[in-house]
């Protein structure tokens, strides 16, 4: 019906019709899928939640005399980073902690500062303290380096997240008798609360459930700047139970994303502390969906009432890798503030910010309407339902003694 090239032409002429993934719902109700698909060119999505598997890498440039950090140790504001790539390339993961953080020694630990916070401060333009030790070689003689670094002087600074933007996610509860502290937040005993973490009807992969337009190479909103889908994310698991319209009912597809950290903003990359669990990074991602045909639009018009997620007990089923679920609930129910589980009305809380996800979808819409952001053809598709790609558990093999 339409091609991405045609849509890009309309964007450049300022004639493209762009709506966000919430607006498109009413539009389809009003006009019907057929007419709406002719009318709308792009649907913008958004999500803003804590996303582990996020990280950055950068190159600090060579000191005089030279130092080879690979094989040595590097700390950024006392947070352990990974230098094992080469001489002066450093990788920092969102979950990293300072060596002297007490962690959960007194449970639950606070986790006030770690990799996610260093990333936020670096993006904000703050100076970061780098302390490194190395073993010294003939060509890289130096053994110690202590210096301030700043993002504006780094040779490359790249956000590279190996698993973001989960297509649906577990809804978390606690069936035990004591409060538990998880990456899904504080869960009160005996079904005291329910936490969920998805933008639902606004979330990128829930609007393109079979990855028809989102693929490797797709240009996206990432952390306030521009990024790309680099690969399927780790734990990408397309073959999960789906509703009749194809919406996954469990955590399914994921994205690995990459982008220029120098053009991102601390408003959309926020250092995050999960009490008793650890630190992470809250990441903003928005993906445009080109309306190439009616089916793509029908999927993009998905509503919270049509998206279901499994409710998982984080006191037993999750830690012990049991497949049991407590039940299934829709995002419409979750957003109403209480859900019924085991005959009990349980209050709901979200870890993903819908209002900020909406701002992302609107920002992306603005970029496209102003002709500042063109759509890309995927270079290769993400593995689909038939691909055989699954998320396998670890099969432990005891080490021989």
């Amino acid at each position: 019906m339409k091609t991405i090239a045609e849509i890009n032409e309309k964007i450049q002429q300022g004639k493209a019709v762009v709506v966000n993934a919430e607006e498109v719902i009413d539009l389809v109700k009003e006009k019907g899928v057929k007419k709406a698909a002719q009318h709308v060119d792009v649907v913008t999505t958004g999500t803003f939640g804590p996303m582990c598997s996020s990280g950055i890498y950068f190159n600090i440039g060579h000191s005089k005399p030279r130092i080879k950090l690979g094989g040595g140790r590097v700390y950024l504001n006392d947070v352990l980073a990974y230098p094992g790539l080469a001489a002066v390339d450093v990788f920092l993961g969102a979950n990293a902690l300072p060596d002297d953080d007490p962690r959960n020694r007194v449970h639950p630990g606070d986790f006030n500062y770690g990799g996610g916070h260093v990333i936020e401060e670096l993006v904000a333009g703050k100076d970061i303290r780098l302390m490194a030790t190395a073993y010294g070689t003939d060509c890289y003689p130096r053994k110690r380096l202590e210096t301030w670094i700043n993002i504006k002087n780094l040779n490359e600074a790249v956000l590279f997240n190996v698993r973001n933007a989960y297509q649906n996610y577990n809804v978390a509860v606690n069936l035990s008798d004591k409060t538990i502290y998880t990456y899904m937040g504080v869960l009160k005993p005996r079904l005291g609360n329910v936490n969920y973490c998805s933008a639902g009807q606004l979330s990128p992969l829930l609007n393109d459930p079979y990855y028809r337009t989102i693929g490797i190479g797709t240009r996206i909103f990432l952390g306030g700047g521009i990024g790309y889908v680099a690969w399927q994310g780790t734990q990408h698991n397309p073959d999960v139970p789906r509703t009749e319209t194809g919406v996954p009912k469990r955590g399914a597809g994921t994205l690995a994303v990459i982008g220029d950290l120098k053009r991102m903003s601390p408003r959309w990359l926020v250092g995050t502390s999960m009490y008793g669990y650890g630190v992470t990074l809250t990441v903003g991602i928005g993906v445009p969906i080109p309306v190439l045909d009616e089916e793509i639009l029908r999927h993009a018009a998905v509503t919270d009432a049509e998206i279901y997620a499994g409710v998982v007990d984080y006191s037993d089923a999750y830690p012990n890798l049991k497949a049991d679920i407590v039940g299934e609930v829709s995002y419409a129910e979750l957003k109403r503030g209480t859900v019924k589980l085991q005959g009990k009305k349980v209050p709901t809380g979200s870890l993903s910010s819908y209002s900020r996800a909406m701002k992302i979808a609107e920002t992306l819409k603005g970029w496209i309407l102003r002709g500042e952001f063109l759509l890309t053809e995927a270079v290769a598709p993400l593995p689909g339902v038939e691909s055989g790609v699954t998320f396998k558990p670890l099969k432990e093999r005891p080490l021989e003694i």
Partner: protein
Amino acid sequence: MAVSKRVVLHFPRRLVEQPVIYRLVKDYNLEFNILRASITAEPEEEGVLVLQLKGEQEEYDRGIKFLLKSGLKIQSLSQDITRNEERCTNCGACVTICPPGAFEVDPKTRQVEFDHEKCVACGLCIKACPPRAMEVHF
């Protein structure tokens, strides 16, 4: 005119063993409800009591004067827990954590509203907030 206010009382160590609150009831007809109490054995630290006080304005004012004269420091509660609006991402992780339900999601905007009036300064939201947007000031 009747008033109902929440106050934070800081007890210097020498006052911890005196029945200050009893005098509020007995001499000033004030009704009290303890929202939070922390009494410490450390010699250098002070005791903190968060109270809801109800009574006639005139008697309330006289009661507060009596507390100040006794050597207590008083803060009104609304100053104690604040939200850093810049850091808050409006996710909603606080909503089910707060015992008096001071956080509510606006169904239209999906923004999380913080109602200071309902806050009892228990502090549970401080660490439950992922971006650590809730701040306590004593």
